């Protein structure tokens, strides 16, 4: 306040520039647009000249692959939305109508259905990449956290989307999952009724599931934008975990990363198209071709394959509320990892013990996935409990403990030296995704 008055008394005014037109490196029409709306400059800066570490493996292509998946999901989703009817009496038939009478409706619907699965395949590989190479560590914590937000939103969208065909698994899956909220103390039942908009899963629920499926899909787009902005500030991590220092360590995004990512996308697309065209229902459940029937409970209510590990955690705990808390925190705990693992070394290439821990964690993921599809009884329940315990032990015990006791292997000082070492066979990397 004082400062302000003293300034005005000396009759000194800070110049302002509300008109920032100009500064474009382009000329002509491009320059005219770019001077007024600098997106062309930004695009060149962020996607053409942008420097990325030279040592990136194909594990770094999944970000681009996920973007393509998201775009395709939205395009096919909008097309489906033009024919689908969110009505308990018409939903199943409207999907069948899409499959039978809409031109290429079968293609659009199978694409949307299978893309959801492939989106999760890509996201799991993407998360694994982050875990293995320590991409969650300083300064990428916020990007990691945004990623976890995206993952939660993805799960919500996928669940809501699965309810829409209104088959048996849609209906009973919705019933089981929404009923989880009844575990909330005191107000649980009230919340469930409020979620349903009725006293049971039915027309009102289906209608809002449809709206929310759309809403959250676009929320994902929003958070992805933040995720990518953050990426362009902190830069890509790389298999060495060492920050690039000079031009020997980097390549420009285009044409190097673009050509590489394009190849990865095509391979991914090839596998996706083969599955979609030749085994479109392989990843789905046959029961979802039976119209929803509140009077008949399926023998085994199972979620989609990508939820099975979390479903196993949920069922491994006898108390409903604790089960829900365990399931949600098994994902949320990923967000604490940047602080639970305080090793200064990012890449597992140089962390012999942590590397084994991560492989055990991945194994645990598959074991829980298998258990999630099995009935919750006998030996399965025992394994599920061990798996759940390991999952939390990984984060709360192994991560800090290994950070303390582990002695990292000798490290190169730069990315180009890392590449030299790799050529000499001094270090081992995951070969599958190397170039």
């Amino acid at each position: 306040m004082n400062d302000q008055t003293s300034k005005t008394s000396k009759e000194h005014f800070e110049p302002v520039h509300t008109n920032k037109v100009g500064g474009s490196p382009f000329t002509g029409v491009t320059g005219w647009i770019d001077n007024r709306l600098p997106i062309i400059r930004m695009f060149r800066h962020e996607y053409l000249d942008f420097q990325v570490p030279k040592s990136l493996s194909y594990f770094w292509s999944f970000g681009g692959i996920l973007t393509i998946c998201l775009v395709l999901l939205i395009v096919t989703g909008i097309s489906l939305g033009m024919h689908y009817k969110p009505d308990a009496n018409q939903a199943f038939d409207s999907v069948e109508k899409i499959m039978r009478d809409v031109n290429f409706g079968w293609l659009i619907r199978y694409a949307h259905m299978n893309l959801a699965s492939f989106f999760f395949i890509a996201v799991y590989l993407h998360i694994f990449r982050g875990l293995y190479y320590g991409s969650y560590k300083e300064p990428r914590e916020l990007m990691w956290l945004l990623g976890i937000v995206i993952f939660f939103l993805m799960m919500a969208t996928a669940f809501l989307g699965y309810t829409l065909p209104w088959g048996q698994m849609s209906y009973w899956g919705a019933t089981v999952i929404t009923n989880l909220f009844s575990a909330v103390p005191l107000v649980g039942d009230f919340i469930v009724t409020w979620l349903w908009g009725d006293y049971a899963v039915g027309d009102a629920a289906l209608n809002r599931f449809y709206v929310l499926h759309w809403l959250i899909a676009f929320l994902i787009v929003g958070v992805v934008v933040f995720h990518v902005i953050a990426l362009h500030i902190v830069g890509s991590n790389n298999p060495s975990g060492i920050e690039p220092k000079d031009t020997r360590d980097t390549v420009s995004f285009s044409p190097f990363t673009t050509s590489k990512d394009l190849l990865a996308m095509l391979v991914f697309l090839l596998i996706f198209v083969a599955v979609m065209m030749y085994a479109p229902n392989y990843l789905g459940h046959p029961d979802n071709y039976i119209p929803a029937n509140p009077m008949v409970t399926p023998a085994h209510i199972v979620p989609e394959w990508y939820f099975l590990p979390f479903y196993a955690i949920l069922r491994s705990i006898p108390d409903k509320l604790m089960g829900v808390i365990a399931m949600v925190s098994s994902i949320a705990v990923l967000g604490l990892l940047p602080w639970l693992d305080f090793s200064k070394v990012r890449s597992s290439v140089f962390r012999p013990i942590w590397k084994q821990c991560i492989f055990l964690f991945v194994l645990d993921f598959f074991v829980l996935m298998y258990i999630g599809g099995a009935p919750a009884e006998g030996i399965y329940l025992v394994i599920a409990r061990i798996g759940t315990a390991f999952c939390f032990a990984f984060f709360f015990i192994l991560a800090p403990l290994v950070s303390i006791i582990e002695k990292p292997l000798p490290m190169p000082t730069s990315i180009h030296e890392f590449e030299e070492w790799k050529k000499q066979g001094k270090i081992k990397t995951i070969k599958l995704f190397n170039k």
Partner: protein
Amino acid sequence: MKSSLFKSSYLFIILFLFSFSNISFSKETNVELLKPSWSFDGFFGKFDRASLQRGYQVYKEVCASCHSMKQLSYRNLGEQGGPEFTEAEVKAIASQYEVLDGPNAEGEMFTRKGKPSDKFKSPYLNENASRAANGGAYPPDMSVLVKARPGGSDYIYSLLMGYEEKVPDNIKLEDGVYYNKYMPGNKIRMAKPLSEGSVSYTDGTKATQEQLSKDVVAFLTWAAEPHLEARKKLGFKSVVYLLILTILVYFVKKKIWLRVEPKV
């Protein structure tokens, strides 16, 4: 050596889990299904038109007395990739049915002859009527039945072939319940629907139980997946296209990266 042992056992465990992931966990369905060779299997799978036409006849004369097919219209029978009846044949088939229509200008409901655009006529007015007529069991709608059962076409075929006279001692059948080797729980309320000669084919094909079952399952598979042929055709084209494109992009990528990684 030690690490490769660790690695291979690690991969083995994961593959082991996956190899079992398709097994249904319900205890009753551990019987191996019959797996006849289907013309619609494989990369270039196609339906056998004659078989689909015979299959429709089986459906019409046997199944349709209890099972509806609500998602299909008579016009579908003439569409490409299906039984491909001629337009006249489709019209003739549709006109065999009396369809309730209306209300007319006087506000009265009336019946008329079926048109190709009509949906398949259901044997019962509603589910309750259907249950009442079938001892409480509801014969499921057959439109997507093949996709709604684990094992799909093989399962339906096995079920049709799985009626056995000799009932194992540990299974007690109530009234109106039959033994079937492939039905989960081995008990089924549907009496054996097909046996030799239950339909008389007009094209000279011998109507054995196997033949009848194969034809009707082919028909049901088409009904559940009417665009199967188009899908496989387009699938082959797109896989080949992507494969070529991927190979080309591979070389492009390699050439571009030579700029930063010259061959030593």
